[in-house]
């Protein structure tokens, strides 16, 4: 009984270390191809990067807009009923603005993109592995990291902050709409309260987070896609774990970044 537990723990630890090592190796290769590749005179894949950014960014825009607007409404309603007890309704705008920009917009956007785009990266690259397309690239002398990983990674590093700025705006508009309907307060007053409460720092903390989240989604999706060895069932599994693993890592990193920024003051 005990030996089984210890053995299971050992196996899990080993898997964890192997995965961590593989992710680290992918980070190193990607950084090399991204920054040192162009210095070596390797091709920059601008067209592919733009196409991927459109898929990751523009493709997720409607969903990000809808969800951040609704979450803005929810946040405003929840805080309104609590703050009313203290007679502090006027703080709703501050709360919504800060919660959205610092936390909700980056987190929700990252989760949406992990579900929509991160999963599709894993499925696409995994299928290419199964059908030997990645081998075909290698045999042609085309580096699969430069060809497949880097455009997707750069696309995410650009698209996520863009989406988050958009989600910030939609979330605050959602909060404004809620207050408008419940309190009959003017929209202008809400927005000027929100603007007064926001510091530049709130926005850039959110953007720093979103860049980190974009990196996680891209690396996890590519790693799991490239790790596919067998057949169609493995592609399915890679797709699922790309989403699950991205979301877990996003929340862990979110916690770390938040802790660091609040300790700093």
């Amino acid at each position, binding site marked *: 009984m005990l030996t089984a537990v210890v053995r299971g723990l050992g196996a899990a630890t080993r898997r964890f270390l192997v995965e961590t090592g593989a992710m680290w190796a992918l980070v190193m290769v990607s950084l090399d191809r991204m920054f040192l590749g162009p210095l070596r005179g390797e091709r920059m894949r601008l067209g592919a990067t733009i196409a991927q950014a459109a898929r990751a960014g523009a493709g997720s825009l409607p969903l990000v807009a809808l969800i951040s607007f609704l979450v803005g409404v929810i946040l405003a309603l929840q805080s309104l009923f609590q703050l009313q007890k203290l007679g502090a309704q006027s703080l709703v705008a501050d709360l919504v603005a800060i919660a959205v920009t610092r936390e909700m917009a980056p987190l929700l956007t990252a989760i949406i993109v992990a579900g929509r785009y991160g999963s599709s990266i894993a499925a696409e690259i995994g*299928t*290419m592995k199964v*059908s*030997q*397309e990645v*081998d*075909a690239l*290698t*045999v042609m*002398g085309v580096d699969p990291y430069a060809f497949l990983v880097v455009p997707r990674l750069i696309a995410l590093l650009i698209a996520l902050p863009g989406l988050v700025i958009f989600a910030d705006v939609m979330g605050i508009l959602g909060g404004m709409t809620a207050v408008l309907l419940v309190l009959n307060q003017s929209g202008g007053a809400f927005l000027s309260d929100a603007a007064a409460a926001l510091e530049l720092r709130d926005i850039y903390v959110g953007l720093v987070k979103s860049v980190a989240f974009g990196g996680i989604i891209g690396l996890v999706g590519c790693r799991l896609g490239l790790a596919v060895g067998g057949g169609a069932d493995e592609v399915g599994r890679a797709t699922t774990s790309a989403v699950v693993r991205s979301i877990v890592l996003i929340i862990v990193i979110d916690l770390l970044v938040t802790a660091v920024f609040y300790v700093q003051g």
Partner: protein
Amino acid sequence: MSRAENTGRVLVRAQGLHKQMGGRTVLAGLDLEVRAGETMVILGPSGCGKSTLLRCLAGLERPDRGRVFLAGVDLCAASSRQVRAARRHLGMAFQGGALFGSLTLAENVELPLVEFSRLPASTRRILARIKLGMVGLEEAMDQLPSEISGGMRKRAALARALALDPEILMFDEPSAGLDPITAAGLDQLLLALKALNPVAMVVVTHEMESAFVIADRMVLMHEGKFLVSGTPAQVRASDHPMVRRFLDRRPPETLEGAHGLRRFFAEST
């Protein structure tokens, strides 16, 4: 270099290849040499390790022991840059085609040109048309791989492998999964290609008829070893029992006479 000088250069060489996979010996000390202008067929039943051998020759898999030289470059010792340079001399057609699904046939053929030449788009398109014309797919050049048949996909893969006029051509199971007429057509295509250009060809197959049509030399592989190697005539004349079994299409003992099946019916009735 004149054609006479060009033929006979060793372009693919494997020395003492060993490979274990999942505790099983897949390659058990293989030596192989393929010269320019020569077609080497690696023949064998499924699971004998012939695809792994081909992957080692192309540098997609590393042997545990032994060395592989591709166009004179030691794939196991060279830098990744040198390996990539050596691969410019290699064209490879995979079993299922491995065409890029989001690109049309023409774009698939153009991809190596986009990567490794500075040709303008119009010239690339003309070259793609020529290469696809060589395999009889000029009409289908703007179709996606999903819109064409399996045999057409194999031919398109061949056209892509030819895009950079390689000196070495590797082909994994050209006739697997094709009807006999299409398969025979592909054999003729490979022969025509060789007549056109003195390339070194390595073809992996389990189809005997096809092997004897296209081979200059052939090896018969079984459980990671070469049972015989030589010209098609030499292989045909071999009296090695496994070779005879393979050439005469006799089933292995475990299945022979469907013994188990007969016993099963005897017991159940």
